[in-house]
């Protein structure tokens, strides 16, 4: 072995040097495999040098498009932050290998650095193929391969209106989805007669085409690109197609397949295939025994170049094992894939095209809903492969069964529910040796040694590749120990809601004793379940026959202190008060009353984050006095203390604003009055904007309404807070009545199915099927629930009474509003204030000490 010629101290030790050229997904998998085998500098077994062309370490190229869903390049990283340091691996990013001297066993990087090697591993991947059409280098032409490509497309798309993708394969459709997401009117040009010609057959391609055209993309199949035309400024302005037609486009993305990057191998005289690819044997060794090639740059022993990540990973493992002195072989892999393209599930596995002699197809095709399923069955009844488009849920169970005789008739597996099938062929039907995760080649048996998903991911890597097997892994895990609300109830909030509703339970104690955990029955419940059940009973009060007043009877003991005193507890034990101002519209007289009340009781006054007027610093005993004045002036409770509707904000709308197209203020008032007092799993906020300028910020609300010339658009699931989320469009151009009916259904469905303290945004993202499911339920009435949801809301609206008006008119209810049970007239000496900016603020110094200083009952008036 030639003596290394580098000053690096490591090189003078006896350990061999492994140089890896390329740090993509396969390169990183190779490094992990080395680390697993202890072949690292940290283990004292090798020097490992990695040369990476891109400016960042390995990232998940399969999920490249998710960058446009708001993921950052960092989110896509495949490298644990301390991976390189922990194993002592030298990673040089932005410094690709330029040449290899096989005789001298050195690699020279672009920076000029020379690295001697004992073993060289080429993982250079592939490059996008750009067909040699005239104009392909014009400004506005891109490829779709790296994060840098994406960033460039994103930047250029800002000045573009129409884009075209050349290539209707897997990556081409990904790119088309990205262009559409960037707001471009998008064309897809595919030379083959169907989309995704490699993965799906004609029927699948047709189902895919219909769904993708429904999304607003224009697809041209069976035509080639003849020329990209550019204007005088050198920028793309159109495309000429082989059928004589032309397209006006501002941006072109070439995604017509990839080619192995084998230049480095060619330059140093390694054998390459006729159509490219570095020739390797089953051990992934090239024609030079000291050089290996893995992943998309390699021409595998079976004569194929694999463009998928799973075979690349297998090659990485095989090469690492061989380099570590073990035995391993990569003899080929199947091309099964499952992915979500533009929201459509597409999967193919095994012999998808029915190439085997005597094979027969079992096909289900529903063009209307874009579902196509085909199973290829051998003459002896074994499953050979299949294609699934539009609904690929069965991929996880069918693919591992390839090569076996199915336990049920194949037609039962492709029919939709309600048509005699499908038979739920769960993962329990799979044999232990069935491969569940094909990216990392993990069997069912290996997965079932673990009991929780995080553990499976950590120990076996299953589910960390493409993720298509996660659902099956979830089904293989034992059910979570306990999904109960708290230590008292084994049920979730939505289950308790159903119990209360169907059994018409009106008492917490009754519910706890009948449905609580055995050890909690007869007890007092806890701070989690009491307010939750209190809220559920309050939500259903008119329907199940409970009192609508949240402080009646036993309900009083369930409410958090805010609900208990119908005000918001502040840090020094004082309370704040928010009167309802529906839609934010208020007369000068009422504004003056608020000012007078605040002045007379010495309250700190502020417009809150939610744009409401809040009066701070009231003692418990002052609350009824303050509210007597407010109720007399026509105010009602603003429910700022409750998990309930807070406010419906509005812009001034059509009446005053020159841009307004609807009366947003009237609608906001109507909605606030309709839903006031509605108890829900968490607070509810809303807003109505009078035009698309959206001054009311409706898309930051749980339900937001934006006026259109034709009516109203309803958005749901937005919020501000720590994790802001824009609301999603539920339905558009609604009449007043349609809008109210939809909101009725939406809110009641949320209240019925959400978890405790789960805002609509989190709920929408959690529930199966997400927004589409909610739309099915509340717009299309897919569950037949809408009539009941509307009735529940009608009950609420009819049963509403103002809690504060009821309280101040009832001496029995007023009795609780004393600070001290033994001294009803004494104010709380611990609630004191000091001045700040012409108002008051809590005297926290008073509270800071270990105990309150001794003070008498006198002299405590604040």
């Amino acid at each position, binding site marked *: 072995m030639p003596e290394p010629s580098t000053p690096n101290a490591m090189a003078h030790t006896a350990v061999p040097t492994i140089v890896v050229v390329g740090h993509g997904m396969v390169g990183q998998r190779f490094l992990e495999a080395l680390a697993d085998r202890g072949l690292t500098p940290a283990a004292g077994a090798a020097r490992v040098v990695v040369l990476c062309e891109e400016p960042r370490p390995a990232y998940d190229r399969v999920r490249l498009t998710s960058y446009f869903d708001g993921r950052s390049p960092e989110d896509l990283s495949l490298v644990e932050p301390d991976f390189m340091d922990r194993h002592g691996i030298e990673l040089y990013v932005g410094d690709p290998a330029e040449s290899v001297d096989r005789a001298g066993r050195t690699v020279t990087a672009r920076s000029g650095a020379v690295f001697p090697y004992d073993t060289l591993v080429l993982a250079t991947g592939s490059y996008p193929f750009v067909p040699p059409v005239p104009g392909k280098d014009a400004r506005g032409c891109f490829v779709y391969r790296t994060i840098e490509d994406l960033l460039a497309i994103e930047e250029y798309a800002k000045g573009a209106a129409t884009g075209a993708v050349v290539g209707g394969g897997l990556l081409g459709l990904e790119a088309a989805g990205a262009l559409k997401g960037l707001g471009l009117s998008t064309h897809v040009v595919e030379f083959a007669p169907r989309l995704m010609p490699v993965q799906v057959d004609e029927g699948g391609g047709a189902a895919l085409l219909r769904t993708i055209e429904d999304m607003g993309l224009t697809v041209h199949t069976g035509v080639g690109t003849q020329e990209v035309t550019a204007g005088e400024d050198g920028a793309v302005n159109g495309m000429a197609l082989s059928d004589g037609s032309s397209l006006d486009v501002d941006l072109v993305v070439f995604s017509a397949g990839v080619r192995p990057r084998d230049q480095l191998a060619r330059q140093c005289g390694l054998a390459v295939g006729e159509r490219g690819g570095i020739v390797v044997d089953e051990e992934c060794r090239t024609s030079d025994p000291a050089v290996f090639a893995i992943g998309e740059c390699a021409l595998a022993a079976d004569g194929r170049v694999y463009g998928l990540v799973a075979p690349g990973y297998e090659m990485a493992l095989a090469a690492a094992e061989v380099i570590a002195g073990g035995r391993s072989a990569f003899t080929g892999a199947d091309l099964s894939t499952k992915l979500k393209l533009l929201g459509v599930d597409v999967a193919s596995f095994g012999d998808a095209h029915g190439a085997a002699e005597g094979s027969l197809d079992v096909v289900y095709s529903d063009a209307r809903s874009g579902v196509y399923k085909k199973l290829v069955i051998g003459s002896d009844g074994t499953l050979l492969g299949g294609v699934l488009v539009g609904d690929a849920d069965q991929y996880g169970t069918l693919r591992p069964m390839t090569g076996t005789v199915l336990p049920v008739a194949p037609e039962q597996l492709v029919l939709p529910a309600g048509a005699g099938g499908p038979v739920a062929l769960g993962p329990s039907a799979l044999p232990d040796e069935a491969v569940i995760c094909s990216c990392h080649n993990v069997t069912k048996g290996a997965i079932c040694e673990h009991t929780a998903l995080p553990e499976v991911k950590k120990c076996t890597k299953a589910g960390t590749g493409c993720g298509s097997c996660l659902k099956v892994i979830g089904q293989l895990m034992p059910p979570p120990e306990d999904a109960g609300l708290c230590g008292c109830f084994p049920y979730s909030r939505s289950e308790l809601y159903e119990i209360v509703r169907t059994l018409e339970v009106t008492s917490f104690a009754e519910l706890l004793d009948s449905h609580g955990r055995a050890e909690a029955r007869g007890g007092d419940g806890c701070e989690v379940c009491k307010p939750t059940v209190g809220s559920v009973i309050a939500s259903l009060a008119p329907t199940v026959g409970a009192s609508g007043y949240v402080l*009646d009877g036993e309900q009083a003991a369930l409410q958090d*202190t805010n609900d208990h005193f119908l005000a918001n*507890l502040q840090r020094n034990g004082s309370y704040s008060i928010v009167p309802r101002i529906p839609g934010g519209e208020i007369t000068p007289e009422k504004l003056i009353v608020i000012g007078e009340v605040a002045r007379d009781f010495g309250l700190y006054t502020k417009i809150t984050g939610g744009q409401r007027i809040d009066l701070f610093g009231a003692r418990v005993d002052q609350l009824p006095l303050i509210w007597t004045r407010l109720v007399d002036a026509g105010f009602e409770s603003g429910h700022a203390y409750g998990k309930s509707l807070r406010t419906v904000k509005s812009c001034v709308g059509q009446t005053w604003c020159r841009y307004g197209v609807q009366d947003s203020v009237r609608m906001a008032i109507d909605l606030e009055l309709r839903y006031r007092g509605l108890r829900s799993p968490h607070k509810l906020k809303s807003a109505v904007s009078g035009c698309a300028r959206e001054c009311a910020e409706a898309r930051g609300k749980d339900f937001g309404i934006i006026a259109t010339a034709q009516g109203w658009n309803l958005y749901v699931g937005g919020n501000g807070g720590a994790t802001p989320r824009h609301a999603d469009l539920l339905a558009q151009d609604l009449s007043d009545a349609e809008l109210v009916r939809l909101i009725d259904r939406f809110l009641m469905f949320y209240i019925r199915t959400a978890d405790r303290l789960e805002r609509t945004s989190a709920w929408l993202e959690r529930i199966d099927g997400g927004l589409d499911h909610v739309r099915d339920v509340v717009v299309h009435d897919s569950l037949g629930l809408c009539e009941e949801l509307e009735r529940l809301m009608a009950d609420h609206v009819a049963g509403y009474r103002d809690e504060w008006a009821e309280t101040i008119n009832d001496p*029995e209810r007023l009795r609780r509003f004393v600070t001290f*049970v033994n001294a009803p007239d004494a104010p709380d000496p611990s609630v004191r204030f000091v001045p700040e900016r012409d108002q008051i603020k809590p005297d*926290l110094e008073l*509270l*800071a000490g270990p105990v*309150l200083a001794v003070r008498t009952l006198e002299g405590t008036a604040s």
Partner: protein
Amino acid sequence: MTTATITTAQDTGSVRLAHGKDWLTVCERGLLTPGRGVAVLLPDGDQAAVFMDRAGQVYAIGNRDPFTGAYVLSRGLLGSAGGRPFVASPLLKQRFDLATGACLDDEEAAVPVFTVRAD
């Protein structure tokens, strides 16, 4: 007055708190709501929180929440864990054992306990 409130007719006795050598009469037993508390002003200016659980057992602890300094424990929600009653502070929700005053969420913290009689 249209709806029934919590008045437990059989509970006409009074609630008394040990204070120094004396028993301080706090209120009628019927004024307590099961599952909730009331605040008591002590002669020395200190405050206690008195609770009644579902079984009718009465407890008293200091009213000051040691985590915030505010005198609010009487306004917390009562619960039971493993058969032992506790109150959860209405401010930051730490739980205190009503019988011992120990904080269930922080070994370092505790509140004083008062001897109480309800007969």
